[in-house]
């Protein structure tokens, strides 16, 4: 009965390094979302997958951000050449079917770029 899990929970990167953040959704969940949460703010949408198809990536802030879900389960958010403004908590959520179903969130990955 596991929920959404994310790894690592904390990541410290030097500016210019590439990072990869992993999300394991609830088993059987079709929809998967990534959000970015800056300190003291609400989460902001990054991208949405339905199975392996990335249907919306309009929230990705730059072409340095890339997400994939190749087999329709685990997803990876990759950030290339990290910048200080990328420091945030990255949240993953999944929902059972349609994107309008309730989203269940993971604990997040706190990324700090030095």
């Amino acid at each position, binding site marked *: 009965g596991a929920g959404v899990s994310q790894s690592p929970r904390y990541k410290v990167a030097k500016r210019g390094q590439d990072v990869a953040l992993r999300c394991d959704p609830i088993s059987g969940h079709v929809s998967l979302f990534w959000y970015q949460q800056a300190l003291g*703010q*609400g989460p902001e*949408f990054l991208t949405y997958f339905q199975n392996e198809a990335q249907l*919306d990536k309009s929230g990705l802030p730059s072409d340095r951000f890339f997400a994939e879900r190749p087999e329709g389960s685990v997803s990876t958010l990759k950030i290339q050449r990290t910048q200080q403004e990328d420091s945030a908590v990255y949240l993953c959520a999944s929902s059972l079917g349609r*994107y309008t179903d*309730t989203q269940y*969130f993971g604990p997040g990955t706190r990324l700090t770029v030095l």
Partner: protein
Amino acid sequence: AQTVTQSQPEMSVQEAETVTLSCTYDTSESDYYLFWYKQPPSRQMILVIRQEAYKQQNATENRFSVNFQKAAKSFSLKISDSQLGDAAMYFCAYLIGAGSYQLTFGKGTKLSVIP
């Protein structure tokens, strides 16, 4: 731009008392969904309550209830018999039923519960 406004950055309530958190939203869509999420200091976001815009009846979940005023675009959360475990950030959010996959959040209200 479609927005969610939570006008109370911080609120406090005495244990066992009732508190209401405010939320207004701005959308021109008729088909949408509204949510309140709770985020304790451990950071995991938990759904508190969900309301479909087409439903007239206000949603309730145990001690949590909403006052959904569609015409006023208002969606407040009432917490009755407040408990220490209710202390958290509360986020109001909405999702349009068609044409967008984005769950839009407000900036949150930090709720403190005083013993």
